[in-house]
């Protein structure tokens, strides 16, 4: 037998399967139009983005976000290491004030303070549960591996599916099935706990990416279709695609990685300084701390702001923001806001022009669209605190 053919029998080499998420067939069965996103076929829409958007705002929408990276950061077996201190050296988060089961937003910064990703950190009993963006998860694992000592394990929970149930009626639908020590209705925004859903073990947190009350639900991948069916069996719930997820998060003023933030921007410029907790701003001791402290002290040339547009023509990513004849910024996300019935956008503009109420224009296809700087969220949050 030649060495080359040994590959076929090598027990350590697994065949490369096309990346398919646990609910792939489930989405197709529900009539979803699938597109590639973060390396996976994902549902962009079922019945239509507008209807799905409005349904989520008035009832409850079920989103499959299993493309996102779920990581469990814990000490390696037998290692005597303070995983909390190790993670604080990697992220600008204050873990001392993060209680077990609590969830907090943070940022993964490069050494120069550029944003590599945004993420959610939850304290579990013996480690930390991180949810990172799908498109960046492999890079994030590499970066965290670099930032964390060898005695800290990064467990990629890649057999876990992640669902989000969002909307004012999400709590009603989910409470009928969630069994746990803490009644679901008593779980507050940015808190999580263990439950069972139709007998399936689930980690549920009251959080999301739509600005609505809602939950994020981590379950074993092989049980995902069962849980999705269970939830979509409730009259309040319909499956919602990535299209509406994008328009909902835009209305909620929530930035999308790779569009509204990138390694080009720091936390201050991106308006995400809340992801750098107060104690850490003063103390530093995390990658990019010098940039954060400098930007806080001196300000930045540009800032991420929200724009409300006149008329109905939407501004799109890449459109120039103008003040008179001067180019003063660039649109990073934009679209028609179904809840508001007018177009909105996020943009980076010169700090001098970032104040609410400032009149600006956006150049789209040779036209000038009138816009005004407005506070975000564009649509008020309805978190249950």
């Amino acid at each position, binding site marked *: 037998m030649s060495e080359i053919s040994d590959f076929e029998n090598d027990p350590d080499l697994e065949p490369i399967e096309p990346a398919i998420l646990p609910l792939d067939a489930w989405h197709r069965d529900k009539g979803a139009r699938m597109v590639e996103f973060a390396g996976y076929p994902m549902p962009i829409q079922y019945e239509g983005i507008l*209807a799905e958007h409005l349904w989520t705002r008035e009832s409850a929408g079920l989103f499959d976000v299993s493309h996102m990276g779920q990581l469990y950061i814990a000490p390696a077996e037998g290692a005597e290491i303070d995983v909390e201190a190790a993670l604080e050296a990697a992220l600008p988060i204050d873990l001392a004030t993060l209680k077990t089961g609590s969830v907090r937003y943070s940022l993964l910064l490069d050494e120069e303070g550029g944003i590599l990703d945004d993420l959610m950190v939850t304290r579990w009993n013996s480690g930390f549960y991180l949810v990172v963006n799908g498109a960046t998860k492999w890079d994030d694992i590499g970066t965290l591996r670099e930032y964390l000592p060898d005695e800290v394990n990064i467990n990629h929970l890649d057999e876990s599916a992640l669902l989000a149930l969002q909307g004012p009626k999400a709590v009603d639908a989910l409470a009928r099935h969630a069994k746990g020590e803490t009644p679901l209705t008593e779980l507050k925004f940015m808190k999580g706990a263990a439950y069972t859903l139709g007998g399936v073990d689930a980690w549920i947190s009251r959080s999301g990416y739509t600005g609505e009350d809602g939950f994020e639900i981590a379950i074993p991948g092989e049980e995902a279709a069962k849980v999705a069916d269970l939830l979509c069996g409730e009259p309040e719930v319909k499956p919602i695609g990535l299209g509406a997820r994008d328009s909902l998060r835009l209305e909620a003023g929530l930035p999308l990685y790779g569009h509204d933030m990138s390694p080009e921007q720091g936390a201050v410029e991106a308006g995400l300084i809340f992801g750098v907790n107060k104690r850490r701003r003063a103390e530093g001791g995390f990658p990019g701390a010098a940039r954060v402290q400098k930007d806080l002290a001196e300000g930045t040339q540009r800032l991420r702001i929200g724009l409300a547009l006149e008329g109905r023509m939407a501004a799109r990513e890449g459109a120039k923001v103008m003040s008179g004849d001067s180019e003063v910024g660039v649109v990073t996300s934009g679209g028609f806001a179904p809840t508001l019935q007018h177009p909105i956008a996020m943009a980076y503009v010169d700090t001098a022009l970032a104040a609410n109420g400032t009149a600006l224009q956006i150049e789209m296809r040779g036209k000038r669209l009138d816009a005004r700087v407005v506070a975000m969220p564009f649509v008020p949050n309805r978190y249950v605190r």
Partner: protein
Amino acid sequence: MSVYYSEDHEWIEVEGDLGTVGITDYAQGQLGDITFVDLPEEGATVAKGDSIAVVDSVKAASDVYTPVSGEIAETNDALADEPELVNSDPEVGGWLFRVKLADASELEELMDEAAYKKFVAGL
């Protein structure tokens, strides 16, 4: 009166030297919910293949190319208040603009309904 179709999913219904242009049912289905239509100026001179209108959906903006050369005679004012007509009635009430044909022979390069259906089935 005849209807022709382009590979960019526009239809044109021709009566005499006047053509009415819109996007096909297939196209509106692909674009999804339409929120705004940017129409050309009446009186503008356009050349076949020019991007002269834009259909905005919740998802994205898409160019509309004129399938013939000529002069814009009229645009569909109803779309200002009801852009969703392009979704609900793309091949009648959701028409976009009327063009006075400069060269009727350009129509020969377009497809008839049977050919367009075959074209779409192959996508």
